[in-house]
C-alpha cells in the first residue's frame, strides 16, 4: 500500500510539473485551440486558446496520470483499492500543483517583467489558465477537483482494461478478431488469408498514394523531410538496431549519396549533368561501397571503439567537403547548386508532391527489403550478433561478413536518402551533413524502439515532424522538444513501438499445455500429439506477427 501511495504521489508530481512546463512554453494554449477546433467545443476563448479545450487537455493528461499511477510493479497484487489509491494520490498531487500555479498566476503583479524571461506568460495566457475568470481563488479548487476526478477515472479505466495494460487488452481483442476472422470458411485456406492480407495492403497503399494529393506544398515538403529521415532511420536500424553496431558517423553515407547526385547532375563544378535516373542507382551503389570500404578496417572493433571511429569518419567527410583543398572538386563551403531532378518522358517531376511520391515508394521498397532480410537467416544472424557476438560466431556465423553486409545495406539506404534529399533541394553543401544529422537519426531509432520498423516511422514523425508542428512555440521549440524526449524516455524507455519477435511455432495445442513443464518428461504426451500437426508449420509462419 505504501509503495502504491508513493508511486501515485511521484506520478502526480511528474505529471503536474509536465503540465506546468507545457503551460510555460505555451503548449497548452496551442493544444487547447487545436482540441477546441477538433472536438468542435463551444465555449469562451481567450486569446489564441479555448477554455473548454484547455479543460479537456488537462483532463486527458490527468487520465493518463491516473492510469500510470494505478499500475504497481507487482502484477499479481494489483487490486481495485490499490489502483484507486494510486490514481487518487496522483490526481490530488497534480491538482495541488495546478491550484498553486493558479493562485500564483492570479497574484502576479508585474507580468511584463516576467515576460522578459518567459515570453509565453502574458495576461492572455494567464486568463486562459484561470479559465477566463478574473478571480484565481475560485479556479484553484476547480483544478484540484478536475485532476482528482480524472486521476481516479484514469485509474479505474486502466484497471478495467485488463490489469491496466492497454496493450494486452488491444492484443487480446486483436487475437479474438483474428480468430473470428479465420473461422470464415473462405479464410481458413492459406490463399484466403493471403488475399485478405493483400487487400489490407492495397487499402493502405491507396491511402498513402492519395495522401500527397490532399496535402499542400508545405506539408508535402515537411513530410518529405520526415520521409527522408525514415529512410535513413531504416538503414541505421539495420546497423544499430539489428546488427548492434553503434555507428555515429552514419551521415557520411548520406553525404556520399547527396554528393554523388550533386557532382554528376549539376552544371557546377564539373558540368557532367547526367540524368537523374542514371545517377540514382549509382549513388546507392557508391554509398554502399563507401560502407564496405569503411567497414573493412573498422568492423574488427567492438562497441565504443567502433562508435568513436565512425564518429570521426562522419566528420572527416564533412570537413573534406568544405575544405579549400577539394573546393574545385566538391564545391567547397558553398556546396553544389542546381542539382538535377527526375523527369519522366521529358516532363520534369521536381515538385514537392512528386518527390513525396518518390520518397513513399522508396520507403515501401526499403521496408520490404528490410522485412525480408529480418525474417531470414540474415536477420537472425544480425540479431544473434547483437545479442552476443562471441556466441554468434561460435554458431557458425561469419560475423565479419554479416557486419559488412549490415554496413553496406545501411549505407545504401542512407545513400538513397541523400540522393533524394539533394535532388529535392536542388542543393547540397557541407552543412547538410553535420554530426547533428547522425545524432538525429540515431535518436529517432532509439526513441522509436531499436530494431522495430514501425518504431522508426513513429520516431521520425516524433523527432522530425513534431518540431515542425511545434514551430509556433518559436524560441521554446527545442526546449519543448528536449523535454518531450526526456519525458518519453522516462515513460517508455524501450521506445515508442518496441520490436517484438515473431511467433512461428504452431499454436494449436497450446491452450492445453502447461505453461512451464517442470520435468521434461512430463510433456511427452503433448509432444506426440503435436507431431501430427507438423504439416501446419508453414501456414502459420507469416500470418502471425506480434
Amino acid at each position, binding site marked *: 500500500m505504501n509503495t502504491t501511495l508513493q508511486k501515485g504521489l511521484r506520478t502526480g508530481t511528474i505529471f503536474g510539473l509536465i503540465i506546468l512546463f507545457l503551460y510555460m512554453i505555451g503548449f497548452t494554449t496551442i493544444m487547447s485551440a487545436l482540441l477546441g477546433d477538433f472536438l468542435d467545443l463551444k465555449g469562451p476563448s481567450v486569446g489564441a486558446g479555448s477554455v473548454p479545450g484547455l479543460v479537456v487537455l488537462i483532463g486527458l493528461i490527468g487520465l493518463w496520470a491516473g492510469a500510470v499511477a494505478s499500475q504497481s510493479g507487482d502484477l499479481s497484487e494489483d487490486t481495485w483499492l490499490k489502483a484507486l489509491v494510486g490514481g487518487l494520490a496522483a490526481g490530488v498531487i497534480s491538482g495541488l500543483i495546478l491550484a498553486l500555479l493558479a493562485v500564483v498566476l492570479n497574484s502576479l503583479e508585474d507580468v511584463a517583467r516576467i515576460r522578459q524571461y518567459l515570453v509565453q506568460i502574458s495576461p492572455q495566457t494567464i486568463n486562459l489558465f484561470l479559465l477566463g475568470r478574473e478571480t484565481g481563488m475560485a479556479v484553484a479548487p476547480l483544478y484540484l477537483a478536475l485532476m482528482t476526478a480524472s486521476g481516479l477515472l484514469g485509474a479505474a479505466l486502466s484497471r478495467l482494461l485488463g490489469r491496466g495494460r492497454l496493450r494486452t487488452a488491444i492484443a487480446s481483442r486483436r487475437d479474438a478478431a483474428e480468430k473470428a476472422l479465420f473461422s470464415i470458411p473462405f479464410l481458413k485456406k492459406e490463399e484466403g488469408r493471403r488475399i485478405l492480407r493483400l487487400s489490407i495492403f492495397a487499402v493502405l497503399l491507396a491511402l498513402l498514394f492519395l495522401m500527397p494529393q490532399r496535402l499542400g506544398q508545405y506539408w508535402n515538403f515537411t513530410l518529405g523531410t520526415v520521409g527522408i529521415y525514415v529512410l535513413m532511420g531504416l538503414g541505421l536500424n539495420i546497423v544499430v538496431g539489428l546488427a548492434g553496431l553503434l555507428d555515429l558517423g552514419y551521415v557520411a553515407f548520406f553525404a556520399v549519396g547527396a554528393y554523388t547526385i550533386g557532382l554528376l547532375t549539376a552544371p557546377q563544378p564539373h558540368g557532367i549533368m547526367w540524368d537523374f535516373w542514371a545517377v540514382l542507382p549509382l549513388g546507392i551503389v557508391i554509398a554502399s561501397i563507401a560502407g564496405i570500404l569503411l567497414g573493412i578496417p573498422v568492423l574488427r572493433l567492438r562497441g565504443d571503439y567502433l562508435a568513436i571511429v565512425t564518429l570521426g569518419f562522419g566528420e572527416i567527410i564533412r570537413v573534406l567537403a568544405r575544405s579549400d583543398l577539394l573546393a574545385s572538386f566538391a564545391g567547397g563551403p558553398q556546396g553544389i547548386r542546381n542539382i538535377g531532378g527526375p523527369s519522366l518522358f521529358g516532363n520534369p517531376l521536381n515538385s514537392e508532391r512528386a518527390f513525396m511520391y518518390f520518397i513513399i515508394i522508396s520507403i515501401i521498397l526499403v521496408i520490404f527489403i528490410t522485412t525480408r*532480410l529480418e525474417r531470414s537467416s540474415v536477420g537472425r544472424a544480425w540479431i544473434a550478433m547483437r545479442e552476443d557476438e*562471441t556466441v554468434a560466431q561460435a554458431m557458425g556465423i561469419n560475423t565479419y561478413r554479416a557486419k559488412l553486409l549490415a554496413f553496406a545495406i545501411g549505407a545504401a539506404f542512407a545513400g538513397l536518402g541523400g540522393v533524394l534529399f539533394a535532388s529535392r533541394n536542388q542543393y547540397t553543401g557541407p552543412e547538410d551533413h553535420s554530426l547533428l544529422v547522425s545524432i538525429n537519426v540515431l535518436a529517432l531509432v532509439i526513441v522509436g524502439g531499436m530494431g522495430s520498423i514501425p518504431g522508426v516511422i513513429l520516431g521520425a514523425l516524433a523527432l522530425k515532424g513534431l518540431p515542425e508542428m511545434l514551430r509556433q512555440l518559436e524560441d521554446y521549440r527545442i526546449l519543448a522538444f528536449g523535454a518531450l524526449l526526456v519525458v518519453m524516455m522516462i515513460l517508455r524507455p524501450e521506445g515508442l513501438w518496441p520490436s517484438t*519477435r515473431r511467433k512461428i511455432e504452431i499454436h494449436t495445442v497450446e491452450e492445453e499445455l502447461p505453461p512451464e513443464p517442470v520435468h521434461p518428461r512430463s510433456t511427452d504426451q503433448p509432444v506426440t500429439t503435436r507431431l501430427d500437426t507438423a504439416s501446419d508449420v508453414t501456414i502459420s509462419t507469416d500470418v502471425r506477427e506480434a
Partner: protein
Amino acid sequence: MKATLETRNLTKRFGGLTAVDHVNLVIPEHAIASVIGPNGAGKTTFFNCITGFYTPEEGEIIFDGQHSLAGLSPDKITRLGISRTYQNIRLFSNMTALENIMVGHHPKLKSMWFESIVRTPRMRREEEEALEDSIRLLRFVGLAGMGDTLARNLPYGAQRRLEIARALANKPKLLLLDEPTAGMNPNETSEMMHFIRNLRDKLGITILLIEHDMRVVMGISEQITVLDYGSKIAEGTPEEIQGNPRVIEAYLGRGAASGLSAQQRPAAAAI
C-alpha cells in the same frame, strides 16, 4: 577405435602463465568423456582452444582424423561439426527459443543474402527445413510449446536444455558441454545425466564435458582426463581416477591421498 578428437602437445600461454601445458588427449568416437580439475586448472581454456576462441601457441588439434583445427576461426570450426555450450548460459536472450535454435542451423544454410530478399525456392526450402528441424529439436529437449517464448523468460533448467538444443542444430559430431549441471538441484542433475546419455545413444554423437559435480562425472563418463595447473595428471576410467593419488592430491592437497582414498571408494560405488 577411431578418434573424434585428438590433441597433441596442446599449449596455451597467457604471458608467463601456461594455462594449458602440452596436453595430449584422444577422445574415441561415440564416447562420453570428461575433463575435470580444480578451479583454474585450464579446463575452459582447453575448450576455448578447441573451439577456436584462443589460438594455441603449440601443438595440434585433429578433428575426425582429418581436419587440423589450428588457426581456424570459431565459425569455421563449428562448420566442421563441433558445437559447444557455456558455463554461464549464453543464449540470445532477446530472441525466441525457436529462433535460438534456428541460429544454430546457420552453418547448414547455403543461400546468399540477396536470396532472402527475392525468396528463391532454395532459400524457402532451407528456411522450412530449418524451422521443422528446430521444432523437432525443441520437442527433443522437452520444450514443446515454448518455442515462441523469449529465451530470457525461460526457467533456468529450460535455458540449459535450450542451449544444448541450439548446439545440436548443426548436427555436430562432437558436442562440448561446459558444466551442464551447474546450479541444478539433485533432481534436475539426474535428469540432465539421463539426457546426456540419451543424446549419445540416440544421436550417436561424441560428448566431451567439463564438470565439477563428481556424481555426474563418475556416473556418465567413460573416460576422464584430469587437468591441474594446465597439464594432464591422470587419465582413465572413473574407477581408475577415483583411486589415483595424484588426483586426490590435486583436489585436496598433499597428504590427503592416503587418508581419503579409502573413504571415497564406497561413495563412488554407490553411484
